């Protein structure tokens, strides 16, 4: 007599392969796109080696095909690969940051209490720009401890067409993120540089770069080969998400 053994065989889940795309099953490894998104870190130290022109052109293509409201494409790119020009920009922004630090940083400013008053007023008028982080960065740039483009050999400036459909600032952000993810997938490092906005406190660069109505300079992207290996997964705070389903609300993290 033979007994049939009831052996529980583990049904192997579909073996997960690296590089799987356009599909999902439980326990799947990160696909290449997810990996680029999760591992991408801001790079703040670049090698001197210039980025090949073709590579920059390829990255710009990723920006060109970004989605935008009503396909309005409210952006214009300026590529700067001239080292002297980049250094000039850095000097210019550093001088402006020195003035801002003098006016607003009550800890170091000879204006003392007045600087404190200006900063409190400024924070109410421009709460985003006077957030403690950019406020601290202004002082670091003024002291020469933080370089505007972190010594990157190539800089892409993004101009926003203010006449764009619906929400051009959002479209510009999407476009920039496209380029940044493409750049990291191609082995480059990038960093968003919002401090280029300081150019608006003067005419020199607006004139030289042709920033005029309807355009506004909103963001810069530093581009280059990173020193060491800055990309990698890190810990970050979970986000509290309100989840509505079956007529009730749950909170998930």
């Amino acid at each position, binding site marked *: 007599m033979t007994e049939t053994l009831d052996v529980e065989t583990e049904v192997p889940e579909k073996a997960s392969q690296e590089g799987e795309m356009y599909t999902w099953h439980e326990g799947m490894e990160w696909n290449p796109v997810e990996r680029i998104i999760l591992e991408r870190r*801001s790079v*703040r130290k670049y090698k001197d080696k210039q980025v090949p022109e073709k590579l920059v052109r390829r990255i710009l293509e990723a920006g060109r095909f970004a989605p935008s409201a009503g396909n309005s494409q409210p952006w214009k790119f300026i590529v700067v690969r001239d080292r002297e020009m980049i250094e000039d920009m850095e000097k210019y922004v550093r001088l402006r940051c020195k003035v801002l630090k003098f006016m607003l940083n009550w800890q170091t400013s000879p204006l003392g209490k007045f600087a404190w008053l200006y900063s*409190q007023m400024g924070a109410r008028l421009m709460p985003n720009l006077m957030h*403690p982080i950019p406020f601290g*960065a202004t002082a670091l740039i003024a002291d020469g401890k933080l370089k505007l483009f972190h010594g990157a050999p190539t800089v892409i400036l993004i101009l926003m067409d203010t006449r764009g459909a619906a929400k051009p600032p959002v479209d510009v952000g999407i476009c920039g993120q496209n380029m940044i993810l493409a750049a990291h997938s191609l082995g480059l490092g990038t960093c968003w540089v919002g401090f280029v906005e300081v150019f608006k406190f003067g005419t020199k660069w607006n004139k030289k770069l042709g920033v005029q109505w309807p355009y506004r300079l909103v963001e810069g992207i530093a581009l280059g080969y990173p020193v060491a290996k800055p990309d990698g997964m890190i810990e970050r*705070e*979970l986000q509290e998400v309100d989840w509505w389903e079956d007529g009730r609300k749950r909170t998930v993290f």
Partner: protein
Amino acid sequence: MAYLTFKERTTIPTYDNPEHGTSGRVVIDHERCNGCGNCALICPGDCLYVAGVGKHKKCYMIDKAFPDCMSCNDCQAICDRDAIRVSVTYDFGYFYKILHRGELAYPRNF
């Protein structure tokens, strides 16, 4: 209920006052750290420095009540030896109070 009280909404924190908020903080495992200095090189807030000679060359966080650490965790990403990571994330309180965040966690593969 409002997410911020009236007082919180109208008070701009004084950034250098530890009672108003907290800055980011990192913990460094000195057993693992070999003082290569990559993290100090890329720190956007200029919060890290390397000190010591030879075997005792280690990375430290600057001794300041309010360092410019923005808890970006780039130092953790660049560290080959898994010796540094952010332990406290920044929260400046009052007007800039951080809302609706949880614990620190790595990307979760659902």
